[in-house]
Each structure stands twice: as structure tokens, then as C-alpha cells.
């Protein structure tokens, strides 16, 4: 079984985030590297979005399965912390998929001070900029809860981590 790292990367990139199933771990920017060792071990480097992210266990499981199904017996998955993940690691393709899924993609930089003067977040449903933050923390660590003042729907915003 001889494959280039590009092909191996493509196998890993098929794994989706369990919390946001429309995004692959490559879109999200948490898949860092895939290498093949001399002894045939596939080494995958991933990084967490947030330190306590419980999705890492499931992602790891899914990676094992993806490579096992592709015929690789030995898979070594490593968690790396540097450089730390930020929302800048998310691909434009990923941001587009997020919007289509109904989650507002991260925009601009984080909140600089304690006064909430972030950029307006666009409602993923009606595209209005007339929205407001309901809660800084939402269904997962990486999201905040917003509501649209025009269409009145609440929505998740993938918050900026710079």
C-alpha cells in the first residue's frame, strides 16, 4: 500500500466534525498534517478548537475508521497544541458551508474590550445585519447565541477566537 501524503490527507479530510456535520475537519482547520512513516504507520496531527472540546475523542475514532477502511492498519493520531487554533484556520469553503447550514461564520476580530462593540453578525437566514447577541456561550464552546431582530429567529454564531 503506497500512497502519497496528498491522498492520505484526502482520506483524513473526509472526516466531519460531529457537532457541525457539514464541516470536515480540514474545513475547520483542525487537521494539521498527515504523514506516512517508514514502517507504514499513518500519523495524523490534529489540534483542538477549545481545550475541553469533547468532539476530539469522536474525531479521533472517526479518523481510525477512515484509515482502517482505506486499508491502513497502523494509525497514530496525535493532538498538537502549537500553533494554537484560531478561527483564521477555518477555510473560506468552510465558512461558506457554515452559512448554508444556518450558523453565522466568524467575522472580523474578537471583542477587544469589555464593551461589546463587535462587528454586526449577519443573520444566516434573512441576511439582515440587525441582530443581537443573546449569550456569549451556546450549544458548544465555539459558538455564541444570537437572535435576528428582523426575522426574529435565533441562530448560532461561530465566534471569533483570534
Amino acid at each position, binding site marked *: 500500500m503506497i500512497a502519497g501524503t496528498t491522498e492520505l490527507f484526502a482520506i483524513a479530510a473526509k472526516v466531519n466534525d460531529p457537532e457541525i456535520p457539514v464541516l470536515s475537519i480540514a474545513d475547520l482547520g483542525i487537521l494539521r498534517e498527515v504523514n506516512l512513516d517508514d514502517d507504514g504507520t499513518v500519523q495524523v496531527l490534529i489540534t483542538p478548537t477549545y481545550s475541553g472540546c469533547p468532539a*476530539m*475523542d*469522536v474525531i479521533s475514532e472517526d479518523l481510525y475508521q477512515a484509515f482502517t477502511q482505506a486499508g491502513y492498519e497502523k494509525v497514530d*493520531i496525535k493532538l498538537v497544541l*502549537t500553533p494554537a487554533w484560531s478561527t483564521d484556520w477555518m477555510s473560506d469553503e468552510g465558512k461558506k458551508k457554515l452559512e448554508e447550514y444556518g450558523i453565522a461564520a466568524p467575522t472580523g476580530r*474578537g471583542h477587544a474590550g*469589555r464593551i461589546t462593540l463587535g462587528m454586526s453578525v449577519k443573520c444566516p437566514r434573512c441576511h439582515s445585519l440587525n441582530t443581537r447577541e443573546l*449569550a456569549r456561550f451556546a450549544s458548544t464552546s465555539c459558538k455564541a447565541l444570537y437572535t435576528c431582530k428582523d426575522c426574529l429567529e435565533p441562530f448560532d454564531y461561530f465566534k471569533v477566537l483570534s
Partner: protein
Amino acid sequence: MKHEELDAALDSFGDALASATRVTPGNALRPEDIAVDGVAPSEEVARYALTLGDDALILAQRLAHWISRAPELEEDVALGNIALDILGHARSFLTYAGLAWDKTEDDLAYWREEEEFTSLWIVEQPNGHFGVTIIRQLIVSVFQHLLYRQLASSQDETLAAIAAKAVKEVDYHRDHAIQWTIRLGQGTEESAEKMRHALEILWPYVDEMFRDEAVHQNLDSIAVRPSTLRAAWQEEISAVLAQAGLQVPATGQAMAFGRRGEHSEHLGYLLAEMQVLARKHPGASW
């Protein structure tokens, strides 16, 4: 029993104990994988990492208790998320520290006695009413933010990596505490009174946070000496309290020496709850 047999018996015992947080035995990703490539820390670095891990672990345990008990659903979620982030920091620090002693994060979390924990008194103080939890968060998250920001340039690469990750998350925790402090301080007479009460009962544990201890010795350019953070902390807290219409209280300081394993009456009860499952069912997994 021969040496080999004893070693084998101990090894299997250790493995059984290590599995409590594994989703699937054998191949789930564990935080100890973080440091697999890294060199085990020296005894001194490990002891320092242990203090940071203990602070985070005990605070996470305290905060998790709010889930289903917060004043509103959004706060259930917020405090739960904050607790999860902090638990993540605890797992990384404890895993790293454990490498020095051939222990896992679970060994350190579940199988140490009260006097072996090196956490600060502020983190073991009870949640109290919501204002008490918010003031505790304010005091600790501003401290941790300053600490991790500096630790991110530590010469110890693993500590620096954990801190660089943690500081971004603590920034959100700090913002959460500051915004609530201002709202509640400037809210109703009752909310302001409760915030004053919270400051009165928690302020005695401030000095301990900034005391340089034996554990910080001989770790120049690796550990952050807490005394160096005090001025910046004081300035930031004073500004927030002023904006909230609250004052820095004039209370005395507790004789608190958590770093040396001397704890307030509250830690034992917290540990009893946190450790009971692992101790009653060693090696349990799901």
C-alpha cells in the same frame, strides 16, 4: 512475589485506573497524547504544572455544579462551557505533570488525598449565590488571564503551548465575569448588596494567589512568579469595580496555604463528591 510479577501486577492496576475518562478503551484520544512526543518534565516543573492543574480542576468542578441550577438557561450553558474549558486546561496540566511520576491525569485527579492537592483556597470556596460565583470568576479569571499570557512565553514548550491555548479561552471567561459584575453592581439595590457581600467573603483569599512559594523557586523563565502579576491584577479589578459602582473591600486576609496542601474545610467535601465514582468502581469506563 518476584519483582517481575509485582511490576506486572502494578502495571495492570495502573492501566485499569487510567481508563475512567476513555470513551473507548485502547484507542480514544487522551490528553496524555498531548505530551507523548514531549520529554517528561523535571520534578520541579512537574510540581509547578500540578499547581496550575489543581487550580483548574477544582474550579471546573465547582462551576460544573451550576448546570441546571443557574438563574437562566443561558447561564447554565455559559458556566458549563467555562467549566469545560477549564477542565481541558486541568487535563493538559495534570497529564504533563504526571509524566514525571508515571501517573495519568486520572491518577492525579482521583487518587490523591486532600493534603496532596496544591490548589488555591479561592477556587475551593463554595459557589454561594450567583454573585459569589461571579466575583470568584472575576478574581480568578483576571488572574489566570495575566498568568497564562505570561506563561505562553515560558521556556518550557509544553507549558507555553497549554498557556497559549488557555489564554484565549480565559479571555472569554474574564469578559463574562466583568460584564456580570458591572450589570449586577449597577443593577438593583439587592443585586448590588449581594455583590458587596460576595466581595467581602472572597477578598480574604486574594493575597494567597500572589504569594511566591517554594514551588516557584529555581524556575526562572519557566514559571511565572505570582507576585509579579499583582499590580496589573489590582489595576484591572479596581477599574471594573469602579465601573460597577463597587468598592475594593477592606477585609483582612486568610491564613491560606493551599500550595502546601493546607486547605479550608470545603475541599474535602468537594473531593469526596468528585472522587467517589472512581474510587468505588476502579477502572470503570463508558
